[in-house]
């Protein structure tokens, strides 16, 4: 190897520096501030805003794994809702056995019970995810129609298995004493649990951001989302990476299931399927495969749903569809599109 003569001319002018696309991010405060004149009451606006952010962060936790799975391997996994339900039921079982700890007026006792429930939910959802990837997803790689059919079938089977194990009735899931009730700031009342949900959701996003942007594993995942074939050509086994991301995504779905169930204070077998519509909207709004887009999209969906539900209740159901249509008219590939090869 010899040193080349530097005969290659500079082939281009200076390029713009890498910048964050702040416009989609700015939509979140813009939507929040834009809603204020319609709500007219500042305390109500604060309450709705925190509720919207809490809803958004919980949806993000449930959706983030699915968007990575879709981005990495083009897998349409409609059974993701099953992992949400399984996580919620696993937590309900653990918390049912720890009623005393949950009702004790002790932060430590409450947190230890919730921690155990969350760990069980994540572990069970991840284990089910591993089984699901091996048995259901693996035979249908590359075939979207079959993926939709088998994952929808898997979702239905999981729901029926939940009925077999936990019964068909709705199971109440009271919040722990520490996170029941509300904090008041002036005339504004903010539920403690919603603040916890915002904190957990932001922590999950922060951790995912760090992994994706500050580690070699994250670099591989980001590259794999763009061009899995090229990642393989560089010597990495993309399938192993995918299985890891799939299991991680299922674990996050389990965590999201616990959060969502506590938010609703009940668990039912259809909860996963019910929330899947919103999850798909968030993933499409954010840009398929984009974790940052998923986060911003989830916050927008949460805020819009809460504001619309208060201002124009009849539009509440369709508000997220309308949001998705508007975003796609503006950016057809979502807020933060991933450059797929």
């Amino acid at each position: 190897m010899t040193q080349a003569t530097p005969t290659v001319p500079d082939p281009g002018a200076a390029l713009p520096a890498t910048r964050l696309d702040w416009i989609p991010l700015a939509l979140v405060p813009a939507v929040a501030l834009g809603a204020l004149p319609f709500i007219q009451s500042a305390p109500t606006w604060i309450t709705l805003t925190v509720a919207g952010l809490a809803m958004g962060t919980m949806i993000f936790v449930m959706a983030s794994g699915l968007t990575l799975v879709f981005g990495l391997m083009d897998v349409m996994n409609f059974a993701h809702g099953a992992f949400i339900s399984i996580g919620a039921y696993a937590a309900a079982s653990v918390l049912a056995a720890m009623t005393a700890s949950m009702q004790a007026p002790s932060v430590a006792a409450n947190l230890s019970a919730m921690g155990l429930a969350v760990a069980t939910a994540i572990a069970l959802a991840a284990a089910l995810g591993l089984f699901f990837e091996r048995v259901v997803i693996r035979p249908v790689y590359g075939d979207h129609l079959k993926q939709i059919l088998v994952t929808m079938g898997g979702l239905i089977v999981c729901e029926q298995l939940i009925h077999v194990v936990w019964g068909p009735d709705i199971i109440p899931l009271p919040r722990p004493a520490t996170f029941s009730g509300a904090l008041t700031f002036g005339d504004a009342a903010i539920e403690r649990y919603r603040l916890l949900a915002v904190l957990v959701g932001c922590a999950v996003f922060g951790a995912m951001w760090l992994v994706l942007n500050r580690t070699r594993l994250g670099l591989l995942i980001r590259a794999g989302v763009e061009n899995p074939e090229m990642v393989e050509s560089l010597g990495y086994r993309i399938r192993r990476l995918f299985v890891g991301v799939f299991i991680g995504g299922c674990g996050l779905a389990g965590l999201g299931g616990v959060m969502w169930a506590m938010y609703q204070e009940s668990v039912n077998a259809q909860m996963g399927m019910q929330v899947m519509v919103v999850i798909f909207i968030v993933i499409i709004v954010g840009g398929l495969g984009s974790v940052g887009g998923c986060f911003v999209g989830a916050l927008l969906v949460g805020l819009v749903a809460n504001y619309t539900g208060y201002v124009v209740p009849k539009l509440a159901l369709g508000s997220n569809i309308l949001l998705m249509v508007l975003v796609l008219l503006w950016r057809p590939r979502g807020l933060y599109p991933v450059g797929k090869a």
Partner: protein
Amino acid sequence: MPETLLSLSGVNTHIGQYHILQGVDFAVPRGGLTMLLGRNGAGKTTCLRTIMGLWRASAGAIRYDGRDITRTATPELARLGIAYVPENMGIFAGLTVRENLVLAARDGEFDPGRLAWIFGLFPAIQKFWNTLAGNLSGGQKQMLAISRAIVEPRRLLLVDEPTKGLAPAIISNMIEAFKELKRTDTTLLVVEQNFHFARSLGDTVAVMDSGRIAHTGRMDVIASDEGLQTRLLGLSLDSQR
């Protein structure tokens, strides 16, 4: 007679219902640069992708350094020292130039001497080190794609149409860079439609037509025989001389 590094024997490849490669036979000598030429749709890209394991050969055998790699997985081929630059360059647009190269470096560590050599070949890589690869021009992306393939020492480099869509000035730079690459131990197999580029660099040549090898031989022979060029490659290539 130079030793053979890569050989294809009766290789067939099907993509869906289409029978693309229909018994490809040719050998790539160790060292130097072999050009794989042919008209559009002749099967050149399929041939490279089949070698790289991205499409599976349905029949025939591919041997690399005396080892049968017909069924070897793509990541394993990369670890055996085969690098691939696809026709679309395969750049990760959402990653910086540095990050694109880090992925190709074993254990994520650069060899400083090799990196300096790459900067010498392609100064744009150093200049745009922390720029998103998606913001680069077409020529810069091609430089990045080739840099990524050679950031580690490779034994065989498969390059698919490195001059596609590039301006003549950039093609001249590419020719100089490939000449430098030829001075290393790396063997190159390059698919090309630009006959000027092919003639400037090729030591040996294989010409494909309709999924088969129509001609193999020395590049200087075909370069000096206009009749052979017209018969094998057609006017579309001849006009680019």
